[in-house]
């Protein structure tokens, strides 16, 4: 039967082709040999899947750094020569297993150092890969305290862990007049959100404010019940840890049931376009936490003169305002740049160079548009930059954020207590 024969030939051909492709790709993977005149940074982040949005933010942050330094300074200057910076991406697909594979792919491609993924779950599977391969890894976005508790030697983070952000933002909110006497704390049952909710509760307890209730629930639950229970407890403030979708559901249900505490504080991401789009008319007056917004007063320094200069550059490049995750990701690049200058070794980095780089990072202090970056050594925040100040923000009627706390950083007056839903 001739047809079968053809089938076989096609089959063999395709097997052969596949094997060749895989083989070539594999050999290519071994490349990145010694003759390289650029610094190669392997960025692992989620370019597809549920976390694609956050992944895109980190990507813009990393690119912003690389493009700017290459354009303005021709790269990083080492011993008189300038070496361009190249950021190569591998998709973590929003999934820890793919994230680990992606990290390995970058290491295999000969990356000098890694830029980390978006989201804590993926980061927690990438850190061990960095550890095992002894390669420096700085993440510009993961915020779960778990990452730093593990005490990884090769991983660093520019954004303070959420247990600090949540705590400080809550404390700032509790200082507003009239002083709140009770809070209601909710959170979604995934690691980042639970850590956020816990930090909010802790801040309230430390301030001596009554915590009416603390409750976690799955993302896909119906929020009217959460709201009704909260409404019944009648707290002064509602604090919520979760991602943007859950904030949107919470304020929708609150507006439908007419639940108006004096304010909602929600983390992460109330100052993102995504929250404004999702929450629509319910978005204004929401309180949020951040460590950076364009209007913050920070001295700037390396690469970008000021937060606003960064924001303008980012706006020009991508047509959207940067948030703190993007800024933190750019800062991660800046930290590498300064550490590499100090290391003063031409690419590609040897294993000794990489180990030395870790020592430099532990000591480093960089003054950036994002703030002063230094990394803790030892303790529960090992290798986390916890010194960047947390800001309490509130969305205005047009949805744009204003810094309303803590007092020394505030650029505007809070609208507090916030107006009831039907008075807007």
């Amino acid at each position, binding site marked *: 039967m001739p047809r079968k024969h053809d089938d076989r030939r096609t089959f063999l051909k395709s097997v052969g082709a596949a094997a060749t492709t895989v083989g070539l790709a594999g050999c290519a993977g071994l490349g990145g040999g010694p003759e390289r005149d650029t610094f190669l940074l392997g960025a692992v982040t989620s370019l597809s899947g*549920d976390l*694609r949005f956050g992944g895109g933010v980190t990507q813009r942050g990393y690119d912003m750094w690389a493009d700017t330094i290459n354009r303005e300074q021709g790269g990083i200057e080492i011993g008189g020569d300038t070496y361009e910076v190249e950021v190569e991406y591998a998709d973590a697909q929003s999934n820890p297993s793919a994230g680990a594979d992606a990290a390995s792919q970058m290491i295999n491609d000969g990356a000098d150092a890694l830029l980390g993924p978006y989201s804590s779950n993926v980061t927690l599977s990438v850190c061990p890969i960095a550890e095992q391969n002894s390669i420096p890894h700085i993440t510009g976005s993961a915020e779960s305290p778990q990452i730093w508790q593990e005490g990884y030697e090769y991983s660093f983070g520019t954004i303070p862990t959420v247990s600090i952000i949540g705590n400080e933002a809550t404390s700032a909110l509790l200082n507003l007049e009239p002083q709140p006497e009770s809070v209601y704390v909710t959170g979604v049952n995934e690691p980042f959100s639970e850590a956020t909710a816990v930090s909010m509760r802790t801040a309230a307890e430390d301030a001596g404010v009554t915590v009416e209730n603390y409750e976690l629930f799955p993302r896909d639950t119906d929020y*009217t019940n959460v709201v009704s229970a909260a409404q019944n407890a009648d707290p002064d403030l509602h604090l919520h840890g979760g991602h943007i979708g859950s904030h949107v*559901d919470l304020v929708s249900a609150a507006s439908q049931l*007419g639940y108006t505490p004096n304010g909602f504080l929600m983390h992460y991401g109330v100052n993102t376009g995504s929250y404004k789009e999702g929450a629509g008319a319910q978005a204004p007056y929401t309180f949020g936490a951040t460590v950076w917004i364009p209007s913050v007063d920070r001295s700037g320094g390396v690469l970008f003169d000021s937060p606003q200069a960064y924001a303008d550059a980012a706006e020009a490049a991508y047509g959207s305002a940067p948030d703190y995750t993007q800024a933190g990701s750019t800062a991660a690049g800046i930290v590498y740049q300064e550490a590499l200058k100090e290391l003063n070794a031409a690419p590609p980095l040897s294993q000794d160079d990489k180990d030395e780089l870790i020592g430099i990072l532990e000591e480093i202090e960089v003054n950036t548009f994002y703030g002063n970056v230094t990394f803790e050594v030892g303790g529960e925040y090992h290798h986390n930059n916890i010194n960047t100040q947390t800001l309490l923000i509130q969305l205005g009627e047009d949805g744009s954020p204003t810094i309303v706390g803590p007092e020394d950083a505030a650029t505007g007056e809070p609208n507090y207590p916030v107006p009831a839903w039907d008075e807007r």
Partner: protein
Amino acid sequence: MVDIGLFTQIVINGLLLGGIYVTIGVGFSLAFGVLEVVDFAVGEYVMVGAFMGAVLAPLFGAEGVFVIPIVLVVFFAVGALIQPLIHHVTTGDRPHPLLMGLVFTFGLATFLRGSVLTIFGPNSQDVPSSLLTGGIEVPGLGTFPVVRTVTAVFGVTGLAVFMYYLYRTRGGMAIRAIAEDRTNARLMGININRYQSIAYGAYAALTGSAGVFIGMTFNASPGMGLQYTAFAFFMVVLAGMGYLPGVIVAGIVLGLTQSFTAVYISGNAVLLVLFAIIYVVLLVSPAGILGKGEWAT
């Protein structure tokens, strides 16, 4: 100890939530019981409906309600064209016809979810409505959110229309005859392809417009489909497969269980309780909590 105000509000929340589930359960029960299609794409129809609301509402003065007629027509047409494909993979000399149907609709679901994700990105979008905002406060009972109340009314109306169609019209008789026995229906001169397409189209239309309501109640996001697929399955399991009136009871049970668990036990346990109930009901009374579904294999 139990606060009466909270208690009645929880009952209201539960019933209205049940109403939302009824909007999905009605069509799905029809598809499951009458067409014998176990449709994994049900939640994605909700999702696509919600996105149509988000995209089209701005063209109608930011009012999602006005999008519903369009969604009804579009989904009916698309559903009518999808049904022959499903019919094709579940009949004829194929190994595992049931699995083929399941997996085909699973592929359809992946296709729909992936397409929306690729086109619109992963963010949620608001489905605006200025008519259905806020809540009506009934003294002594609690607050009835307008959008949820209207959604529940839509669900119950949808059920009534389906029941009327199935039991009072010629087309409905034809569809019931097909459900009883395809071969006999064919012998009786019923064009089974056409009526199956009509039934599936009606299911898709109802489910898609339920999506617009759900979008107005919550919002539209590419990942929302999975949970509504889950709830659609909850509904038919509790109602009894193919037993349409059971959908109301299932909605009430599901809504109240969810709201009472969330408030009086633990928000964290809601899904655990729901899934455990489904599992136990299937083991103990596969014909639904009323025992009136058909216990077919």
